[in-house]
């Protein structure tokens, strides 16, 4: 295994650890939906409950909040689109590099023999 590969795997493991450790340390925490919570601070500062003057158009269209499962579906779609594009392009890069390296390797060995 090359040094680069080791670095990459090490970094990925580190990222996963940082992401998962809070789950084990804070066993009773809610880990609630974060983005909506800013409203709590707004209410705290203004002293009154703030009524948003505009509701998300999707929620208006279905006349209610997006169900949690459906929301996670959309989040997955978003992740899926991103991962798909990255994997596709990265795959092409890897194959291209492989092809480029093949003749070079041949040259290299010839040169080495000389």
């Amino acid at each position: 295994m090359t040094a680069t590969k080791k670095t990459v795997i090490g970094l990925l493991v580190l990222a996963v650890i940082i992401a998962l450790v809070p789950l084990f340390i804070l066993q009773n925490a809610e880990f609630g939906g974060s983005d909506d919570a800013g409203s709590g601070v707004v209410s705290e500062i203004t002293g009154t409950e703030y009524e948003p003057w505009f509701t998300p158009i999707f929620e208006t269209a279905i006349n209610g909040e997006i169900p949690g499962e459906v929301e996670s579906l959309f989040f997955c779609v978003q992740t899926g689109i991103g991962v798909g594009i990255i994997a596709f392009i990265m795959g092409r890069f890897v194959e291209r590099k492989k092809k480029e390296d093949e003749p070079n390797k041949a040259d290299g060995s010839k040169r080495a023999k000389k």
Partner: protein
Amino acid sequence: MNTSLNTREKRFIAVAAAIALVFGFTPVASAMHIMEGYLPVGFSVAWGVICIPFLIAGYMSIKKTLKENPKTITLLAMAGAYVFVLSSLKIPSVTGSCSHMTGTGLGAILFGPTAVSILGVIVLLFQAILLAHGGLTTLGANTFSMAIAGPFVTFGIFILCKKIKINKHVGVFLAAAIGDLFTYCVTAFQLAMAYPSESGGVAASMVKFLAVFAPTQIPLAIIEGILTVVIIIGLETYAQPELNDLGYLAGGVK
């Protein structure tokens, strides 16, 4: 609409915040994007207008890059996809709430800060329309924090690290992580501007919002830095021609 649920949620948040304060934790709250309808009309419009020149500059910048180096469109797509992935992953943090990353660092480092504004807007629109996450009325403010201010800081730090000859990967890490964190600082500032506290004005309000956002975001900023380094290593290994075209490798210190 489901007002009962909203009130219940708000009450729950208030209770949770109180409990958290008692136990010396930061409140269970953090916000990446400002929610739909949560900025007064004037602010919504103002932030939107501020974004327009950056978006135009971004469009021109992308057009120019692609004209000079058509091949780099693959990397542009990848930078956009990276924003898609990272901003969709909600990650638990040490404060007991979840938040997500921005993913704008990669694009800023490769294509410059203005180009990312376009990529960021696409993601923010997707989330605002389909996910009721962020919002159309707050699109301007969210674009400014995530797709303009953050990337500019990322880019600045990356260039600075290059100048003072820090290891390139360390530079990438710092740039992406601090850019992510700065996005939250701007969000806090935007909310503080709109909701100044009665006693202390904007500054006091800003401290309050920051105290809520920053601790949650720090570990995530570190993760974002790590992931950006990983993808940069990948690109350095497999996409050298494109990186050369973009000038990423030129004059770099490795």
